[in-house]
């Protein structure tokens, strides 16, 4: 598949989970394909990074559901900050661990998972739709403990980016952390997996141990080969974060004209190949890749 083939299977109004974490191994070529499409009114569910920032800045997002939205080396995603301060998006902000349980509940097809996270904090104030549940089992004192019920995130689609995959959709991460990409795949009705390189199944163990094969094809509906598909976020061991490019992206949040130019030239580049060509054509001055 191509990125545009994936987007052709998505619809406005969908709830879409996006893998990766902050500015790490984000499926950016798929995010840019959404950016240049007619899709709108999306609910984006993610440990957010520039995926959330870009889609918010383009007005594609109705609601963001997140444990945080960060660029790592820039602690708060500046386009997301604009969206929040101008109140242009609805939002569901959860404790980072509570967010994990929403994914897990969806993956396990149960309505919720209980947790103490959120009790006493304003997580419950900010999300009045959240309910608590009493334990059916008494504790040592005979009390039935009250817990927060984190509802399952029902995802219409999930987008993840792996280092390697085979054509059938068996995905492999080669970096230090899978994050929650396996859970996004399991939580979604349809999962689209981009990867740095498609390899024959018999070569899946060439670069990593069996422990790196964490997304089996039964949870994957389409594979896109996208070398440097996570750019400008990091995708170790294939490449690190393009910090200079990220700084340039972040700076556009303060300058609508700069954002218009950046959006047109990079975000809405007609294809992933053309995007990479434009990235590579940047002057060497200030480049760090």
């Amino acid at each position, binding site marked *: 598949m191509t990125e545009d083939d994936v987007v052709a299977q998505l619809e406005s109004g969908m709830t879409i989970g996006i893998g990766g*974490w902050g500015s790490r191994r984000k499926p950016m070529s798929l995010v840019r394909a959404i950016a240049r499409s007619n899709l709108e009114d999306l609910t984006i569910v993610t440990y957010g990074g520039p995926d959330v920032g870009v889609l918010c800045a383009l007005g594609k997002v109705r609601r963001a559901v997140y444990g945080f*939205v960060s660029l790592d080396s820039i602690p708060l995603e500046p386009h997301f900050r604009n969206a929040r*301060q101008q109140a242009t998006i609805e939002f569901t902000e959860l404790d980072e661990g*509570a967010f994990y349980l929403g994914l897990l509940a969806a993956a396990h097809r149960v309505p919720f998972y209980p947790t103490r996270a959120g*009790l*006493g*904090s304003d997580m419950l104030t900010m999300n009045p739709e959240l309910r608590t549940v009493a334990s059916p089992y008494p504790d040592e004192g005979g009390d039935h403990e009250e817990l927060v019920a984190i509802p399952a995130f029902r995802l219409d689609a999930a987008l993840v980016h792996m280092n390697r995959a085979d054509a059938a959709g068996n995905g492999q991460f080669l970096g230090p952390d899978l994050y929650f990409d396996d859970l996004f795949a399991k939580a979604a009705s349809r999962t689209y997996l981009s990867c740095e390189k498609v390899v024959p199944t018999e070569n899946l163990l060439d670069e990593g141990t069996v422990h790196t094969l964490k997304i089996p094809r039964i949870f994957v509906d389409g594979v896109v080969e996208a070398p440097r598909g996570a750019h400008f976020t990091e995708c170790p061991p294939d490449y690190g974060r393009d910090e200079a490019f990220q700084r340039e992206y972040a700076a556009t949040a303060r300058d609508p004209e700069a954002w218009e130019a950046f959006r047109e030239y990079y975000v809405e580049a007609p294809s992933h190949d053309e995007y990479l060509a434009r990235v590579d054509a940047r002057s060497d001055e200030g480049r760090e890749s």
Partner: protein
Amino acid sequence: MSPVAIDEVCAVAIAEAFRGDGEILCNPIGTTPIIGGRLARATFEPDMVMTDTISVLAANTLPVGDPDAERLVEAWMPYRDIFDVVWSGRRHIVMGASQIDARGNQNLAAIGDWRKPKAQLLGLRGAPGNLVNHATTYWVPNHSTRTFVPEVDVVSGPGYDRVAGLSAAVRDSHEIRRVVSNLGVFDFANDEKRMQLVSVHPDVTVDHVVEATGFELVVGDEVGQTRLPTDEELRLIREVIDPHGLRKAEFGS
């Protein structure tokens, strides 16, 4: 050896918050807290485990802010596994606080109305879950009436008043061990569980701390001075843990 600097006093004060913790995950966030945590483990709390801030537990004392430093790996600790540790209770975190009140309520999330904030900050992050599961210490490098406030705009990490009506499991797990600022050290070790001044840093007066605090601080008859680093602690901070002086950035020097 050159004179002791305020950043070194603060690092030691944070290290002291871990005294007695034993074999838990020492999980400080931010440069000065990380220096404090690594210092505690390198001296009086050797059983604690610590991450490399990426994805492993490293048994050796790593220099702060050096992603390429050689690690003595003792376990894999990807991000997801941190929550197993959080929910187990075997963790003590040091977090920042953009605002904090007399009962220990912390705001990292937003300034103003969270529906349309004047300033969106980091968000709730992991604070709600941290506070109801394990010990927490706060680090506030800019002590003023803007950070030590009568009421926080958003409660990310709940304080003692917010957990008082919750389950025994929550109350037993909730502990705000210390608050360390650039002016002094604070705790909640009184019957009312209100923030009290434990010690002032060198060259800081009690009056100065009281004036810089936007709520009534509990101040006992005997407020000590925060202890100074030992020669060995200074050597570890300056030569091993932060040889490039990254800690200075938070202190405007």
